[in-house]
């Protein structure tokens, strides 16, 4: 394609091609500290393209494609090109990933052990992971945690952190020196701003961790924690994984192993700081 960029995020290599320069230029800047794909061969190809040639110039709108596509994907305006690229990369993971059980969860690590946070989007898991990272945890990812069914370890996937709405200010306050993408107003998901994970998260992204806690945070309620029964945790995680069924036996062994070995806890919280306190309290009690 006209413009191209390759990057590796955790164990996954991407090649992104674009009909426009701008999204590629933005990705090059934001991902400048990341390595390229292993052996120079990307796991997934992503394409940002104009449906008709004139759409490159007239009201340019970015179609999302690649190795794996969904017909229902709607195009985005060119100024949201980074968001289109991130969506397209996530889509490749959601539809194509087979090496790891893909858990739709954010993850942080301390002493080689990881907390997985699943269940909500928006002001929830991205912000929570960012706040925990500001308190000394290693950030592993805000969208997908990759569970290796063979080892039971989770691998980091520290892509750009996708901050939304009020989460933007919270993360900026916690990470005043962080590098940020442009503020994208009025996207289909509200205001979005991408934040580059901290240097430690990128440097350690090839180090997996043993899961120690599976948290189901819920924003907007009074502080409370309660254990989640194993069957409920199991079913919720099958629904929070786009490739559980596709992994077959490996997925079953991986997920039942995770549920058996790690406590599952629902966490209700009224604001980010209380959630951080609750996670740290649960952690100390493990």
């Amino acid at each position, binding site marked *: *394609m006209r413009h*191209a960029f390759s990057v590796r995020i955790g164990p996954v*290599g991407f*090649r992104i*091609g674009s009909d426009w320069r701008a999204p590629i230029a933005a990705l090059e800047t934001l991902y400048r500290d990341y390595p390229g*794909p*292993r*052996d*120079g*061969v*990307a*796991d997934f*190809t992503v*394409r940002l*393209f104009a449906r008709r040639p004139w759409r490159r110039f007239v009201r340019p709108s970015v179609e999302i494609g*690649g*190795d*794996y596509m969904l017909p229902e994907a709607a195009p985005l305006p060119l100024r949201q090109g980074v968001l289109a690229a991130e969506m397209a990369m996530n889509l490749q993971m959601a539809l194509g990933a*087979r*090496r790891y059980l893909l858990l739709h969860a954010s993850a942080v690590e301390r002493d080689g052990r990881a907390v997985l946070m699943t269940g909500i989007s928006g002001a929830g898991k991205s912000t929570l992971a960012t706040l925990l990272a500001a308190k000394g945890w290693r950030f592993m990812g805000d969208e997908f945690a990759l569970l290796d069914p063979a080892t039971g370890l989770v691998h980091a996937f520290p892509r750009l952190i996708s901050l939304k709405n009020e989460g933007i200010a919270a993360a900026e306050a916690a990470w005043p020196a962080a590098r940020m993408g442009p503020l994208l107003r009025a996207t289909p998901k509200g205001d979005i701003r991408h934040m580059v994970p901290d240097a430690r998260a990128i440097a350690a992204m090839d180090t997996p961790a043993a899961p120690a806690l599976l948290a189901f945070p819920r924003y907007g309620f009074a502080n409370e924690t309660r254990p989640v029964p194993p069957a409920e945790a199991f079913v919720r995680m099958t629904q929070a994984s786009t490739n559980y069924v*596709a*992994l*077959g036996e*490996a997925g079953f062994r991986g997920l039942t192993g995770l549920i058996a070995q790690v406590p599952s806890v629902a966490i209700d919280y009224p604001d980010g700081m209380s959630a951080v306190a609750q996670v740290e309290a649960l952690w100390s009690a493990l």
Partner: protein
Amino acid sequence: MVRVVNDARILARALADPGSVAGLDADGWTALLAMARAEQLIGTLAMRVDGLAMPAAVKAILDDARAAAEHGRRAALWEAEMARRALAAVDCPVVLLKGTAFVAAGLSAGQGRSIGDLDILVPRESIDRVEAALLAAGWEWVKPDPYDDAYYRRWMHELPPLIHRERDRMIDVHHTILPLTARITPDPVALIDDSVPLENGLRTLSPNAMLIHAAAHLFADGDLAGGLRNLWDIRCLVEEFGTDGLAADAGRHGLSAQVARSLRIVDALFGAGEATVIDRLYIRRVTARDGWGRPTRPVTRLAFYIRSHWLRMPPAMLARHLWTKFRKA
């Protein structure tokens, strides 16, 4: 700047002569993998080059592709088994077609092959009972549109597609292998009479009939989308079963020209055979794919699309069909 790869012939070569991948650099592999995914041949490629020297990253991607193909094989066989259970009481021959038949019979064409819907062939006189049995066992109509439904029932070679409400898998129930509107009319009774039983009571077409069906689908019906995979199926069938009696069988179904063309193209694309001028047009169409996995050669693609409609319908009917579609759009 990335070296431009704009023709899927490198994919055809890698399938036919796996050793040819030895010279690929990182960009070459990346292009090959993107093409193979776009043509739904990544699993097949993974089986073909298994064990050869390649970068670790490529090996990991192809290992995943093999595992995915294995999962797809299992799901396809299970869907066939569920159809078998649903149709056990109907007491008519049920012939598996296409990918499911290849894996059920353990053929080389099934190795690593991606498999979509379940396609079965049943005698036309049983089709109402087959439909009722499937509906009773949890399959439902996909398109409740009256025009489409009437169109299918009157003119197509199959029931309107059904989907299983629990498993989300589609089944296409055929009573012959080409639309009734096509100018060529294969003999479905002979296809079923010559079919071969599997251990579980389901059946597959005879090897020659599998090849004839693939050729019919490729050259007398579709617009050659997914053509490379179909041609690879044909090549595997020829390698495994030879071509004894093929010409006579093809003649019986009125598909001599299509079968001969498919053999020539397979020979030219996967070997060193000579292609005619027209054959080269077909090859141009089925290899229209670049190293980003994008379709190329839009004019050629459009020409084959129009041709596919022309083949399927008599001119007056084509006009009526396009007019109805046009009014609705």
